[in-house]
């Protein structure tokens, strides 16, 4: 079988997998009960409850409800979010962009600080600065995110008033268009420096809170990799050739030490995405995590199903891409050996 045929075969299977996933997601959410509760108020009479069921097709058998839902999804109607009081399709992209922006900012904090701290500590093994960085790293890895986030909130928002919570100054946010949904990028595209500064200012606290735990992991990995590299023969050879200590460290040892660290960084991004739920709740960041937590607590099934379907499809595509890469790397995958 050619690689092209393999890819075509995998692409043909993909819609079946997506439909299968949608059935499973729909069935699992319905096991938790009817989603009607989110649309009801305690003043409604039974006749009014029935009207609400009819409006959302919840008076029909579950398989029929599934077809209404999948028909809506195919037409871009993901249902009504009771938590956000708006169509899911309108809210999801905004929340997704907000969460990604926070996760990326936290990733930048974690990577830049982690590599710098790890390099600094590794190059000064067993010196006082190494011990200090080790303490800082262990603290970051062992402090619960919610506790550290509240600590930052109390010190920098309540006491000092240096950093705000939420995502933006609403007046600045309203003043610019939002083509990407990323406030920082939109502010730059609009050429509005005040809005850009506002975006950064709002990002700092949640990004630091979220990134600190990952910083610790990256710094620890960077330090130990660098120490290993510094014990390699090529380092001694470089020094013997007369290269300056700083050049050996930056041009040779650090570059090689980054290889295992980058692997950890990749894994860390998943950790950051998980952490956004807590950070968003504490810092009132209007992202997917906070929205989803409310949706789960209040039984907002349209929102939950969209989120689960989105992540499922994302994983299906990622798996597809990985399989294709494997196929290129190892022909036996294509040949089915």
């Amino acid at each position, binding site marked *: 079988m050619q690689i092209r045929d393999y890819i075509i075969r995998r692409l043909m299977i993909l819609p079946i997998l997506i439909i299968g996933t949608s059935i499973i997601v729909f069935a699992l959410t319905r096991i938790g009960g009817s*989603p009607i*509760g989110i649309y009801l*108020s305690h003043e409604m009479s039974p006749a009014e409850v029935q009207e609400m069921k009819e409006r959302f097709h919840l008076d029909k058998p579950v398989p029929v409800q599934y077809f209404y839902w999948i028909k809506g999804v195919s037409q871009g109607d993901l249902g009504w979010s009771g938590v956000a009081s708006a169509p899911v399709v309108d*809210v999801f992209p905004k929340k997704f962009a907000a969460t990604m922006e926070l996760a990326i900012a936290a990733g930048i904090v974690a990577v830049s600080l982690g590599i710098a701290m790890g390099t600094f500590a590794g190059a000064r093994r067993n010196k006082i600065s190494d011990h200090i960085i080790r303490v800082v790293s262990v603290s970051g890895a062992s402090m619960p995110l919610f506790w550290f986030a509240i600590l930052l909130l109390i010190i920098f928002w309540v*006491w000092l008033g240096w950093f705000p919570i939420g995502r933006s100054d609403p007046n600045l946010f*309203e003043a610019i268009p939002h083509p990407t949904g990323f406030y920082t990028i939109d502010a730059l595209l609009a050429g509005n420096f005040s809005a850009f500064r506002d975006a950064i200012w709002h990002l700092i606290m949640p990004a630091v809170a979220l990134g600190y735990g990952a910083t610790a992991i990256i710094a620890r990995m960077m330090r130990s990799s660098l120490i290993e590299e510094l014990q390699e023969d090529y380092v001694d050879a470089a020094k013997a050739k007369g290269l300056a200590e700083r050049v050996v460290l930056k041009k040779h040892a650090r570059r090689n030490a980054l290889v295992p660290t980058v692997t950890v960084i990749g894994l860390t991004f998943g950790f950051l995405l998980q952490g956004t739920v807590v950070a968003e709740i504490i810092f009132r960041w209007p992202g997917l995590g906070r929205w989803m937590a409310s949706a789960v607590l209040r039984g907002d099934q349209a929102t939950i199903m969209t989120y689960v379907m989105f992540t499922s499809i994302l994983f299906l595509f990622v798996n597809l891409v990985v399989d294709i890469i494997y196929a290129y790397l190892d022909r036996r995958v294509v040949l089915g050996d």
Partner: protein
Amino acid sequence: MRNILVVAYSILLGLFLTVGVNAQTIKNPGVLVHAADDEATTLDPAQVEAGEGGETVILQVYDRLLEFGPSGPELIPGLATTVPSVENGMISDDGMTYTFEIRKGAVFHDGTDVTAEDVKFSWDRIVEMDLPEGQAGVISDIVAETQAVDDYTFQVTLLEPSASFLNSTVVSMAASIVSKDAVMANGGVVEGEPNEYMAQNAVGSGPYKLKAWNRGENILLDINENYWGNKAKLAARIEIGAEPDVRVLGLRAGNYDTIETDPSFVADIEGADGVTLHTGGLLLEPIHVGFNLNIPEGALPKEDTIPTDFFHDPRIRQAFNYAFDYEAFLYGPLAGFGEFNPHYLPIGIFGHDPDAPRYGAQDKAKAEELFRAAGYWDNGFSVSVITEEANLFADAALVLKDSIEDLNPNFRINVLAVAEAVFDEAHAQNPVEYAMWVKNADPFADPHPYMSAYQHPDGEWGEVHGFANGYRNPEKIAELIDGASTELDVKKRAAMYSELQKMLFDDPMWLITAQEGVTMAYREWVTGFVHNPLWPRPSLRFSYLGK
């Protein structure tokens, strides 16, 4: 080392001084920042539920014909220039026709004039749409006909004389006046279907204009510079969805000017620098335990051992009322902010009779006597009570459990604390498939809606819970409630409610745990603070406030 200490001390001093400055400096000048509990669902008066977050915004951006004034139930003119009365000739002698003179010069936010036709359109619209989540019944249950007599005269004919028309219908958020032009240009009126434009926008004539609604973040309100009355002093920003602890921290830091809170946070707020705790008055939403007299066969949870007619016996209902530890609830979860409320007419509502017989104090001996007489003392029973999780209602259910189980080890109360959506679904069933549930009542300004919804054998809950199966004299109770609703003589009406309260003491259909007290907190720099529980929560009109 010395240098390090100097730096450390400098940082600490700076930190201390910064806190001091924060306490003195007004933050967010020109804007009132209110931290709200949750998101609005809709901004359309025709769709909004009573007590829902959207009413907070509707109060500020729309006008009604009449409004509740700042200090209690007195009515003041809104878009109507005069409060109708028989004396000024604007209520007909038979009490059937009300005439409202519409204010000239009032304009909607879209620039069009407010006319009697807009008023008629607004009222007719909610009845025509008749959305299940809305409050069409506020108008359709009482109004026979509306008429725009001329551009500035609006007339209403009632189905029957009503003592509560002005202070329950006219002032309700559902009766807010919308721009006819704006509605017709954006989807019009369709029976049974929400108007998406009106759900997300607001074209009223109130002191505020809706600037933006960023879901999950905030709602921004601009001052309406063309407002016909006293203009708002501050723009307003409603911050949505901060955790209760974060709201308290934000208030203490001065980042929020007013917050929604409850008695459990009073200890965190009391004595905070620059913060005022407002605890005057009572909410008009009695927290109640419902007794179901209409339990379907086989519907109860399997742990329940009671027969379906358990609550038909008034002695059982009385026994529960005597057994409840009112002090534990009032001084526990409510932190002392509230009152023992003996009747279904809350303190502060016309018709509340302080001399009527009351429960409100635990009497274990009396409870035991009644349970023995009803035949349940020796063998005991097990019954479930459903409630929302993690709030005052769940606390009330737990106090009930402690009270009843402490009385007799053979008694068992299973508290089912569930997610809000699950509770709402269970609560909206007819018949309800649980023997008991805990919630609060909706607030009203007139006694009739309380009596009609919660006590009348054919009323909203009377029908669902089968009150006719349990009242000793359902006809008499119905006659008194119906009669009081149309009785225009104030003294006679008060006497009827007094008699009702005596009857309902002997024949209780609810266990009223307490009347919750007001616990609002705001920054000291907020001026003109007034709080009226008859306004939708948080019971503030932002236009009155300055800083």
